[in-house]
């Protein structure tokens, strides 16, 4: 490890700072922001999972909320069945959303472009309307969690612990993304993004390559949803609604489509901006819209692209 690149050092320093953040906030007497920071990390994980589908897999999916919200409902419903153990329920949330994505993806991936956007949106809305019509799922009000998941010996009821667990999962996800991008599978995805016809002519099983990407993205979104339910103390229908899919897409575009840190930077920028603007104006969405427009016009590779001048995505 004697030849660590500057980017790696920067990454390590950022991780170190993120680990220490709750202690610093505590020292400053701003405990309230520990919960907010955990929320940022959870959205960063969800946005990163969508970025994998959109930016790495080249599929503009507009129904990611189905998986993000779906993971939350798995946790809430499992608690009604007296299942509290995170090591059991969280993987279950990921598995459940993966299975849903397998079905949705197998059908949606027959379409391209605008049709794919519309059909993923339609499936997600179908799930939303189904869930709010189910009494046992809490209908319009959602399902409150009686307590947080248990993860002995850790105490998730402590906001700091939940934050660190979210951080660990996000870091693991980002590391996996790095490995994935450089692997044979990642190179095949890079080829797919550029020329699907050529990949097919080279003998790649294009449909299967894309489906795997779609399902993996959904599974991680489900895991993020499980975390968010714990953070909110609620599995909420708004988390399934199309505006949530839109918000995740905005994060990806703001942060940088296909950039490894795109989802993270986008989540921090969007939620941070909303929080900061929310204190001075009631029209924060208006200004967020401006920020998005500015990024699309002047920084097409997003905030992550701005931080890495000269480095081009392949």
């Amino acid at each position: 490890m004697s030849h660590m690149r500057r980017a790696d050092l920067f990454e390590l320093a950022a991780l170190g700072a993120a680990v220490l953040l709750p202690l610093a906030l505590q020292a400053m007497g701003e405990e309230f922001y520990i919960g907010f920071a955990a929320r940022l990390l959870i959205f960063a994980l969800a946005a990163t999972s969508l970025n994998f589908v959109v930016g790495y897999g080249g599929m503009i999916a507009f129904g990611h909320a189905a998986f993000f919200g779906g993971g939350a409902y798995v946790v809430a419903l499992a608690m009604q069945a007296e299942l509290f153990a995170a090591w059991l329920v969280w993987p279950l949330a990921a598995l459940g959303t993966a299975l849903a994505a397998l079905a949705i993806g197998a059908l949606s991936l027959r379409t391209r472009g605008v049709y794919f956007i519309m059909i993923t949106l339609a499936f997600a809305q179908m799930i939303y309307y189904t869930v709010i019509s189910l009494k046992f799922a809490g209908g319009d009000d959602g399902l409150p969690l009686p307590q947080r998941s248990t993860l002995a010996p850790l105490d998730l009821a402590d906001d700091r612990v939940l934050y660190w667990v979210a951080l660990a999962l996000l870091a693991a996800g980002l590391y996996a993304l790095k490995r994935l991008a450089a692997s044979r599978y990642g190179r095949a995805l890079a080829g797919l993004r550029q020329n699907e016809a050529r990949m097919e002519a080279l003998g790649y099983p294009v449909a299967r390559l894309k489906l795997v990407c779609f399902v993996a993205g959904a599974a991680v979104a489900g895991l993020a949803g499980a975390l968010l339910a714990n953070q909110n103390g609620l599995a909420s229908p708004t988390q399934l609604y199309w505006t949530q899919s839109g918000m995740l897409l905005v994060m990806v575009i703001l942060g940088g489509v296909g950039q490894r840190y795109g989802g993270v930077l986008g989540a921090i920028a969007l939620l941070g901006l909303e929080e900061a603007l929310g204190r001075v104006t009631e029209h924060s969405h208006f200004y967020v819209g401006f920020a998005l427009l500015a990024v699309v016009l002047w920084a097409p590779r997003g905030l992550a692209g701005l931080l890495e001048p000269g480095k081009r995505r392949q």
Partner: protein
Amino acid sequence: MSVLLDIAGLKRHFGGLWATNGVDLAVREGEIHALIGPNGAGKTTLIHLISGALAPDAGRILFDGADVARLPMHARVARGIARSHQITQVFPSLSLLENLRLAVQSRTRDWGSSFQFWRPASADFRMIEEAEDWLGRVGLAEQAGTPAKDVSHGEQRALELAMALATRPRLLLLDEPMAGMGPEESAHMARLIAALKGEQTVLLVEHDMDIVFRLADRVAVLVAGRIIVSDTPAAVRDHPEVRRAYLGDELP
């Protein structure tokens, strides 16, 4: 020589137009078989049907004795049918080396599948070496690191040929490999194809009759969705129906 590709009664229509209207064609192992015909005769449709980009309405495509007419494209590539496109199809932002590496990766499933998620692809030197080797064979070794979109049209076409060859096909389908090329680039491409003679079975669609009659072992003539003759260049040149189809003035 044994027959590698044996097509019988192949049909495909688009609306009311039978683009392929009962094609019978045999391509023998090791030969360069040219496919010529007037514009709109259905040459590209036939290439699409053989490669799997289109499904036929009727007929069979025996490849090495097995009917592949209903197989998806990737399964046909796995059996050894590769193609280049009339309109260049490469990965524009990837380097020439990476373009070829992807072609090699597709073929070398025994070195690791494309569903390998963790190990870096660059750790496999065999793939890189083979990709470099193919680049050298088509004269592109020096531009290995250049993105495909930054090389000339002729070089992109040479790259596409190398990518098709890197899948080590038993049958190579070339759809107008010289399309849109200047005379110098065409000559280079003709040399590359000539170098395949005797080693690689090729079905070549080409408009340049000089090149067709110089390179091909046999020539098939497609008119209005049917093969009217498939024979040696000399026999085809003197065939009365061919003369009529070409109005007698295009053939050398």
